[in-house]
């Protein structure tokens, strides 16, 4: 049993509220990703779960025990650090064996465990090397092996892939997912990379300025963000935000700027300053009643899709993601529209979601 529960967890460093009263329940066996921009308190949260940082207030529960005051070594956790934290003065073998030696496991047993685990993550041929001589990917696997060898009930990982190059990072994502599927332990994974969060998580916890913004499955967080911050954090390129005004209509609402008038049937309530959010893939060319003219000012082919920058008369251009087959050239004048069911609206001042 290794569910985790955080209750009003807070950490204050001097004047900084690094973690600001977060509540979170992680069921046993879940792969949870804490994601947010740098400095939002992810590492501090993870360190408090690990016992490496003492909470200013609040409690941490692992399984049925309140572990807030427990030593790190008593919590049965494994952690992979951002810097990997391999001991430079020990060989790979000794690095992996170290946690077993601490637990006074018999030498023959240590050797067989190290061998099993290092084969699992494919570092069996590196056992005599020193960490400094390993490549980024190899060091990554060794760090993983050292964590695996004691079979912890919870894995904590702090941006473990950030030192790898892009291709390897994508490979390791898949491998970690496989590992999780095989072990069925609880994983708490920290990253600032929204793509990593989207692809790996069972559930995503979005953090900003020490607070949890939203908790949900990847597609929930992507498609149904609770506020402008979450909406802007996920997706590449980012969601388009258009500032304007919301006016009530008999059968819904209407969003108005100087150049756009978007009717939003079935969306009640709300008036005043608002921000309309629409993802690039939900902007499309169409002629009709609810469409607006724009000039294509820039084209960025991605290979599988193409990004278009559309000047429609607003303060910044609108980014649209279209099929590569779309025949379009810079300077073209086209009409575009939004997929009305995918348009989201935020309060102009608070940034909170309105008119669902």
């Amino acid at each position: 049993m290794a569910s985790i529960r955080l209750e009003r967890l807070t950490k204050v460093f001097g004047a900084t509220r690094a973690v600001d009263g977060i509540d979170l329940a992680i069921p046993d066996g879940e792969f949870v990703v804490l994601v947010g921009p740098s400095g939002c308190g992810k590492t501090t949260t993870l360190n408090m779960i690990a016992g490496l940082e003492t909470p200013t207030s609040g409690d941490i529960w692992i399984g049925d025990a309140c572990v807030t005051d427990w030593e790190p070594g008593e919590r049965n956790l494994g952690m992979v650090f951002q810097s990997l934290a391999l001991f430079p003065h020990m060989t790979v073998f000794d690095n992996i064996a170290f946690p077993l030696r601490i637990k006074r496991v018999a030498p023959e047993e240590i050797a067989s465990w190290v061998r099993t685990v290092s084969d699992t993550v494919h570092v069996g041929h590196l056992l005599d090397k020193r960490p400094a001589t390993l490549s980024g990917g190899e060091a990554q696997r060794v760090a993983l092996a050292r964590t695996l060898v004691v079979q912890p009930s919870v894995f904590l990982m702090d941006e473990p892939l950030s030192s790898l190059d892009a291709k390897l990072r994508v490979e390791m994502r898949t491998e970690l997912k496989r590992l999780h599927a095989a072990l069925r332990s609880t994983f708490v994974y920290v990253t600032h990379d929204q793509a990593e969060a989207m692809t790996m998580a069972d559930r995503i916890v979005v953090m900003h300025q020490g607070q949890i913004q939203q908790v949900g499955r990847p597609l929930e967080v992507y498609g149904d963000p609770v506020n402008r911050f979450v909406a802007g954090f996920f997706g590449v390129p980012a969601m388009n935000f258009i500032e304007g005004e919301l006016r009530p209509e008999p059968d819904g609402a209407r969003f108005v700027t100087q150049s756009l008038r978007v009717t939003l049937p079935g969306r009640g309530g709300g008036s005043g300053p608002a921000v309309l959010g629409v993802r690039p893939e939900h902007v499309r060319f169409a002629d009709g009643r609810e469409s607006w003219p724009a000039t294509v000012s820039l084209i960025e082919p991605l290979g599988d899709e193409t990004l278009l920058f559309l000047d429609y008369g607003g303060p910044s251009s609108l980014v649209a993601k279209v099929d590569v087959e779309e025949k379009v050239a810079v300077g073209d004048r086209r009409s575009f529209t939004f997929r009305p069911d995918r348009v989201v609206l935020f309060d102009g001042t608070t940034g909170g979601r309105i008119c669902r």
Partner: protein
Amino acid sequence: MRRGRRKLFPLVRHALLLAWTAVTLFPIYWMVMTSFKHAGEWVTWPPRWFPHEPTLVNYVKVLTPGTSTFELGRQTLKILKPIGDSLVVSGIGSLLAVVLGSALAYSWARFGTGGRNYPYNILSIRMVPPIVIAVPFVVYFVTLRLLDTYTGLILVYVATCLPYVIWMMLAFVEEVPVELERAARLMGVSRLRVLRSVVLPLTASGLVVTFLFVFILNWSELLLAITLTNTEVSTLPITLNKFQSANEGRDYGPQAAIGTLATLPVVVMGFLIQKHLLRGFSFGLLRK
């Protein structure tokens, strides 16, 4: 034309550097040569670059057991005891300073012990010239009966070396990523064992470099030693200094022998430091 100048410049630079090396090394060369010469060759004209009949008589003279004596108005210095005293005082003093100072450096680097300005406060002690503290120490030491004792001089050396040790060890401790210690703590390693199996191995070169550095300082320290000791304790620099005050300061051979003997450990340690400095600062290999 330009190519010619490019070839010429390194040549000139090397010639200048060689000349300067010769200037700095010449006195040492002359001292070592003199220590192997018979009395007749100490001051002859033209000067002898090498002893014609190399001899160890000067070394035998200063190294025979016993205490320094006056014979026929000429002082005969014996240095076995000063060498021992210097080894004891510099060795123990440096060792204690390194133990205490590295503990302080670690606790400040990791836990902020003593507050943000602590290392600077400690350093400000070092800003006081030794001459200023020498006389007050005499006053204290008379009361505490520490004047002319090993304990007294060792205590003073520990105090004066602490700032150096703390600052050097701070640099070495800060090279050890905190995450290494945290990783070990998560595996259930006690704080003390973390020190032994993670911090100590990774700062070992730093400890050696620091020890050698303060040892050399203490080995050649004169002012405090001469002020705070008399007959019971007498270090090498004091003994060497006595030649200046000898009635007939023409005993160049034994003097050169003492000088050579006093320099030897420092030179050896200089080479050791070089090796360890390289290793001590090679932590860049760690992934940050």
